[in-house]
């Protein structure tokens, strides 16, 4: 174990070095760029023995990743925002072909207006692609999640790609201490990928990505739905084994002071660290508030969320994304799957700062609701 003070992008690159993918097709885009730079350096220095493909776009990056994964090797790619949007078409192909690719996303707002700053609209807009989605709270979790994601994605019971999401700049460009695991321990946890469903072998020829008529398509999609449901058990198992070796335990969700909480906030990503600070402060004044951090957004952990929220009188759901007219994605998914007294809050779009006072405002508005979905942190012009 080595403790390094690094950014989440460096943490992701370190994780990739430990996971040893054989093919890395990436195209740089702010704020993901340094991931592609670190990996290029690792390959050039011989620290990562992979084919580094300098593609001409994100559409090509994910296409090359699908092609490489189809030959039966471990593949990594990374992107952000507009790059993710350009990948859209092939993201669905990767999931449908059951390619266990791991992609690191540096969460950034989508244009227009053009913004390089953080929100979750890019990855949230791909939530129906069939990729698993993990939202990291810090650099350590970004590193660990890349390693765990390979283990889960490559499991025969799952075979779906994973997207590890880190908040742009807030995590990707902020340095903090990160524990780099021992390579031997990672090898034990994550053995080489042995494909059984798709690989390149002239002795056993097969066709991938063929045309399917209406007699087959629906079953293929239903299989993905079943794999996504099964993946929750596989994630929990991988998390436990990871904890046994590395001493850090992750869940599908993280409950922070939820047990006796009357008001529970639900959120994803780095924002949760701010919320935890506010909760500590309010708890010292006797206020019963808690946080439910949704770490895995796909597969959607509805049972774990329902269980965590069952004692709360009111729930505030914070989304760094917007589906116009109906509120954020996390709010809508929770409302769709369970009966809770929940209110939606749209926060932090395009890098708008979310401060402790905003969290307090959200708690107050949840206790005295006026409408189901509200935008917090808008700048009101003085007249």
């Amino acid at each position: 174990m080595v403790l390094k003070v690094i950014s989440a992008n460096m943490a992701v690159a370190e994780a990739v070095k430990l996971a040893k993918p054989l093919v890395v097709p990436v195209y740089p885009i702010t704020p993901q760029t340094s991931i592609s730079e670190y990996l290029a350096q690792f390959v050039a220095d011989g620290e990562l023995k992979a084919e580094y493909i300098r593609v001409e776009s994100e559409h090509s990056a994910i296409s090359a990743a699908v092609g490489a994964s189809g030959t039966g090797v471990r593949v990594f790619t990374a992107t952000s925002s507009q790059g993710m949007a350009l990948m859209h078409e092939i993201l669905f192909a990767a999931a449908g072909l059951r390619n266990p690719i791991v992609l690191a996303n540096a969460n950034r707002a989508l244009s227009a207006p053009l913004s390089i700053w953080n929100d979750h609209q890019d990855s949230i807009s791909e939530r129906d692609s069939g990729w698993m989605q993990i939202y990291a709270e810090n650099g350590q979790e970004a590193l660990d999640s890349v390693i765990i994601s390979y283990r889960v994605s490559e499991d025969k019971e799952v075979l779906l790609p994973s997207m590890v999401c880190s908040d742009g700049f807030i995590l990707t460009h902020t340095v903090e201490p990160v524990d780099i695991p021992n390579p031997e321990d990672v090898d034990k946890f994550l053995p080489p990928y042995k494909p059984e469903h798709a690989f390149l072998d002239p002795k056993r020829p097969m066709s991938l990505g063929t045309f399917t008529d209406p007699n087959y398509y629906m079953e293929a999609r239903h299989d993905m739905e079943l794999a996504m449901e099964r993946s929750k058990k596989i994630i929990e198992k991988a998390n436990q084994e990871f904890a046994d070796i590395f001493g850090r335990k992750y869940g599908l969700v993280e409950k922070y002071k939820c047990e006796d909480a009357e008001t529970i906030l639900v959120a994803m990503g780095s924002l949760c660290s701010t919320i935890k600070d506010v909760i500590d402060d309010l708890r010292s004044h006797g206020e019963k508030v808690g946080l439910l951090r949704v770490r895995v957004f796909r597969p959607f952990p509805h049972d774990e969320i329902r269980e965590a929220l069952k004692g709360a009188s009111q729930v505030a759901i914070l989304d760094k994304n917007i589906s116009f007219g109906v509120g954020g994605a996390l709010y809508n998914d929770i409302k769709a799957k369970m009966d809770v007294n929940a209110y939606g809050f749209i926060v932090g779009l395009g890098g708008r700062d979310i401060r402790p006072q905003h969290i307090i405002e959200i708690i107050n508005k949840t206790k005295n609701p006026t409408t189901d979905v509200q935008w917090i942190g808008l700048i009101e012009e003085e007249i």
Partner: protein
Amino acid sequence: MVTIGASVKEPGSSRKNKTGSWRTFKPLLDKDKCIDCDNCILFCPEGCINQEYDIDYDYCKGCGICAEECPVKAIKMERD
């Protein structure tokens, strides 16, 4: 049964998809009129006409190019 990722594990499976079912018009060759020019064989985009001028209706999509290219109008297109 669909396989994981709908991969096809045996080669040559596209033959199982009988594209002749897409056809609306069917080419009918009158071999008495035929002058053995081979135009239909050369122009057929599906390779559905053999050296004996037999048309493979399993895969003929009924595009009508053979009838168009026949210099002696030996091929007629009829509704299938």
